[in-house]
């Protein structure tokens, strides 16, 4: 089975590949992202964040791990389906899911529909806001803000249609790959991998 689900024909298939065990939970991504996109100064407003996951192993010893999260830019995006105005849409050319502020009426249907809690309502701008895979930056030759600052080099970004891209190679070499809530049928484009370099 192919690890890459590709329901929509796209020129590019942009994806983020997160090497799970390289994340050290420093939250540099959170601050870099909030700063670059003027995300309002409140805890509930963010485009990406890292969860600290505490657990126990089979012997009852405590374990911790870190889970970076962001918009999954799903191929079957529930947020796009429920948007009454078309403000939430998926770009044909690269699969990025966006919210057009001029068209958003602030009904928050998308926020409820999103299984990843990836959206927030921006009171200042009167619009729902979310990760754009840093479209303004990547359109101008830069890496996404979270990727460029990632201390553990956990986050990687690129085009899965390009077999030579770093993300394609990582998925090929990965010893394990998972995506969040795949059973919801969303076909997310954020991959969590384990590498064995």
């Amino acid at each position, binding site marked *: 089975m192919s690890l890459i689900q590709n329901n929509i024909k796209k020129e590019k298939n942009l994806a983020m590949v997160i090497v799970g065990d390289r994340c050290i939970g420093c939250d540099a991504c959170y601050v870099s992202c909030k700063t670059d996109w003027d995300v309002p100064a409140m805890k509930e407003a963010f485009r990406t964040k890292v969860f600290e996951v*505490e657990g126990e192993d089979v012997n009852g010893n405590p374990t911790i791990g870190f889970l970076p999260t962001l918009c999954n830019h799903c191929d079957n995006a529930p947020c796009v389906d429920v948007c009454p105005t078309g403000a939430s849409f998926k770009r044909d050319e690269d699969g990025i899911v966006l919210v057009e502020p001029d068209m958003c009426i602030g009904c928050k249907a998308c926020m409820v529909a999103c299984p990843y809690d990836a959206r927030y309502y921006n009171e200042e701008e009167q619009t729902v806001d979310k990760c754009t895979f840093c479209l303004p*930056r990547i359109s101008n030759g830069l890496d996404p*803000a979270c990727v460029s600052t990632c201390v553990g080099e956990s986050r990687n970004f690129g085009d899965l249609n390009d077999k030579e891209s770093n993300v394609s190679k990582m998925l090929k070499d990965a010893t394990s790959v998972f995506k969040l809530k795949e059973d919801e049928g969303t076909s997310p484009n954020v991959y969590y991998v384990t590498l064995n370099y």
Partner: protein
Amino acid sequence: MGRHNISRRGFLKLAGASSVAITAGITGLPSPLKASAAQEATRGARFLKYDRGVKTHNFCEMCFWNCGVDTYTRNGVIHKLEGNKLNPNNRGHLCAKGNAGIQSTYDADRIQSPLIRTGKRGEGKFKKVSWEEAYKYVYEKLNPLVDEFGPETLATFMHGTGEPYPHMLTMAIGSPNITIPAYSQCMGSREMAWALTFGTGVSGHETFDMANSKHMILFGRNMAGAVQVREAEDFAEGLARGARLTYVDPRQSESAVRATDWLQINPGTDMALALGFIHVIIRDNLANMDFVRKYCYGYNELTKHIKQYSPKWASKKCGIDAKTIEKIAWEFAKDAPNVVAIPPRRMTRYGNDTQTVRAIAILNALMGNWGVPGGIFVRNKVPLDFPKEDMPDAPDARRADGVGEGEKYPLAPTTLGRTNGIYEATLTKKPYPIKAWLLYGTNPLSHSSIGVNNLYKAIDNLELLIAIDTQFSDTVMYADVIFPESTYLERYDAPYIQKDKTPFIALRKPAIKPLYDTKGCFEICKGIAKEFELDDWFEKSPKEMQEELSQVLNKEQMETLEKDGVLLFEDVDPYPNASGAALNFSTSTSKVQLYVKDLEDMQKKHGDEFSPLPIYKDPAMPKAGEFRTLFGRTPHHSHARSQNNWVLLELQDDTPVWMNPEDAKKMGFKDGDMVSLVNAKTGHKSDHSERLKVTKRIKSGSIFIHHGFGHTTKAWTRGYEKGTKENWFISDGVDPLSGAAAFHNGFVKVVKA
């Protein structure tokens, strides 16, 4: 809240309940609100533009690590900081704190003009004054004190890139009492132990080659939590390449996330574990004898000494079973020399810290990992001859902090001093009265080491408290006169020259003009010096010092430095041992000193704490019903400086008290209970309650809270009284060898709030 644990969905339920109802009605139906074709054609167009703005080179001042920073400014406003990809301190990345540098600069809570106190000390009442008035105030208050008590009555505390200027000012006035808290409050014991063993300190930019290591043993060194970017990168890289990680800590910190073995050791017993490892290595002939024969002094003495410290003995002390100690020692030796045993950075813990790090240093030496990839790399100087700066003659007066030949702490360096010793002298007026403090970027109330109450009393003994800072810290609020420093994004500083694996020079240039009536530390100290007619010592401004680099750099190098903001000197060898070059050690025997002969006389005079080989002693223990206070850094804040930064406060704005489930059960506490701490020695009870975090991640018998919170400064509109100031609940001990502080023998009672 600590880590992200607010559900935005929960927030949504509160904020948008009505819209949820609307949504339910319209989901999936064709909508009259649908966009027109014209609207659809242009949607998202705004997301294709990105104005990066004007780039200026800088290096970070959110902590002492000084990562390379590119500052991007649009219309005179800084909108983004990015890591400089060429700077070896961070290779293009910034941590959360570094990314949040903008928020600290654009903070209306900053000190906005020179100020003189009008109310009572600590009341926070100040009047705005001109720079001239503030300079004059210092002269008029300090000069009579100098006349009466001698210049040594002034003590200066420094932390930050502007350090050379308060240093120069204090020297010129004639006081020897200059201290850098990074020694006695942080790295002192580690540096002392390393210098005794290897002839050089670990240094602030540590020399552990983690990216190439096959096995790292971290003794309570939280690489992933106390984030310094390059180290965190190297740590993650080494692990990704398959290094084993043995993580030794009573608390499971962020760094334990990928530990091969997490050893939840009894607090204060790291030396026993290290001695146990050494015992196994020597007993089983696992030492790198080529290296030992060639470069080490005192192997025979060590062999005799270590016999008493079997794994079975170590196990009784440190609580790690003997088989595990043997297993890890064998694994470590198997991968030698590409292995490294890493001591804590803030090694101000149990009062036996220098000797504990001595044991860790010996463990490294036996692996022969000096100057080898994956072991300990060798720092190289920038290979240039910089012109020598004139300095005032060293003051004649005896230091007040017990540092210097013939004093109580003869080994401690006079260049760094003992901050804890100055506190003590100010409190006790011995050996002589300290009547004036000059604080540069330091906040003694948040690293007190003599108890917070005693520190308040010491401040009461001052006739003059001068502060140079960007913000109103707890201690700055007690100042008589305050000089506002421009932030690192608003000022020039002298060229940054770093001795390192790859040595380099970096530049700091202002991205914007100062937002408020502030100046660089150079101008401030020169202004004060002028009142004393000592300003001749302040000849060249930081900007002129940058320009003067052209005297030592060629044209091409100057151009590279201007273009990249950093200039690397890559023609150096950090791995001379691996390259087959002969090694030099600046110790008295010119060898790695397993046995420190220099200490023999001191041991006779002062006792076993000064032993040439580490002698184990049990740490002080809490009484029944008491807990040991452990504390440490969070990845989201820099010391006690960043707790008013709004974006960092979003990441963490409290200090839950960690407690082991067994202890919680005994106490009848549940996770989430609100509790207060009571210092078992002083009786001080925390001002407000904290959430109890019941977790096996902390060893039974100890509690843990994060460092840097509990600020009393009302000038911090966001950070005021967030969390608990751990300083109230830590010990006031001293390591007899280094003279540095010992914080982890503080015991508390935990009570329901």
